[in-house]
């Protein structure tokens, strides 16, 4: 038996990457800023997003959201209260969103009318980090109740994120949140990350986050 080695040199996620590149070009063409929110369950992602969308409506920023969820549509119903258009992507047990799901769920939406599109990924810190969705900005959320070392435990996600949003800062004192240690952990895996500290209860940081996500800043313009 003779064996022959054939060089292939193909990216495993090439199909997803190509679809994502197509989406990114489409988003740039109609001038909508797209962010992909990733966190573990329980970071208060949905509460923060609800407030952000409501604030966008108040400020006349046209925002919409795509929500990835394993089964129920509770999050989507809750988010729709903000007055912004919301669609749910049921992943049927899949642990992450892929670019083709984004493309499918955008059909019929007038992207030209939008300033901001938020994609809420499935609650999971590992799997979504491998899949480009065509976003301008990847956002990793970190709640003060989770522990300061989370970025170091999940370096793939925190390294690939442009923005790290700290949530539930109103609870910081109660849980003895060590802010310096958390910021050091973020810097250790991603020296270029922009950190925004927020509270969905007090509204702290919401306007900063909205400004950051709905404006194309020079730093965030670089390809991920």
């Amino acid at each position, binding site marked *: *038996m*003779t*064996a*022959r*080695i*054939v*060089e*292939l*040199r*193909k*990216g*495993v*996620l*090439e*199909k997803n990457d190509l679809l994502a590149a197509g989406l990114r070009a489409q988003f740039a063409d109609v001038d909508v800023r797209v962010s992909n929110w990733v966190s573990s369950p329980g970071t208060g992602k949905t509460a923060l997003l609800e407030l952000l969308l409501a604030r966008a409506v108040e400020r006349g920023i046209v925002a919409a959201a795509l929500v990835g969820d394993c089964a129920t549509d509770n999050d989507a119903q809750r988010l729709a209260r903000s007055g912004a258009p919301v669609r749910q992507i049921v992943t049927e047990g*899949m*642990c*992450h969103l*892929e670019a083709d799901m984004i493309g499918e769920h955008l059909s019929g939406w007038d992207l030209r009318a939008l300033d901001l599109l938020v994609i809420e990924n499935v609650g999971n810190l*590992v*799997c979504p*980090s*491998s*899949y480009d969705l065509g976003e301008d900005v990847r956002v990793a959320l970190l709640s003060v109740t989770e522990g300061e070392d989370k*970025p*170091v435990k999940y*370096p*793939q*996600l925190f*390294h*690939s994120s442009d923005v790290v949003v700290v949530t539930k800062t109103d609870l910081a004192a109660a849980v003895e949140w060590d802010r310096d240690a958390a910021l050091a952990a973020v*810097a*250790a*895996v*991603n*020296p*270029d*990350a922009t950190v925004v500290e927020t509270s969905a209860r007090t509204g702290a940081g919401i306007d900063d986050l909205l400004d950051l996500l709905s404006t194309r800043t020079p730093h965030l313009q670089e390809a991920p």
Partner: protein
Amino acid sequence: MHELSVAHAVVSTVVDALPSPPPRVLGIRVRVGELSGIVPRALEFAYDVAAQDTPLADAALVIEVSPVVIDCPACGPQQLASTHDFRCPVCGTPCGAVIGGKELEILDVTLDDTCVSEDMVEVSA
């Protein structure tokens, strides 16, 4: 875990690249970067499942893990010892410019050449 989706992507990418009829595949080599988000052992396990009933059923998977390499503005390319300390190991400057370690690619495929030529003889006969 998403290793099963990744394993299916590995198998379908290789199968799509094979000539028809597919030759017997003896092995494939995959490069997995430390920042790819893939756990090599989980991928090995998922691959065995994904390869069943495909031309890759007997093909051994070899995973080559590639380390994180940053491009330090002062010192140039430097390999990092860990994925959670993005400082240049030479000068200590924090640096997020990664030039290696995110790979998730199929390097090559080892085919049974005898098998290929037999198939070709059969086809031409």
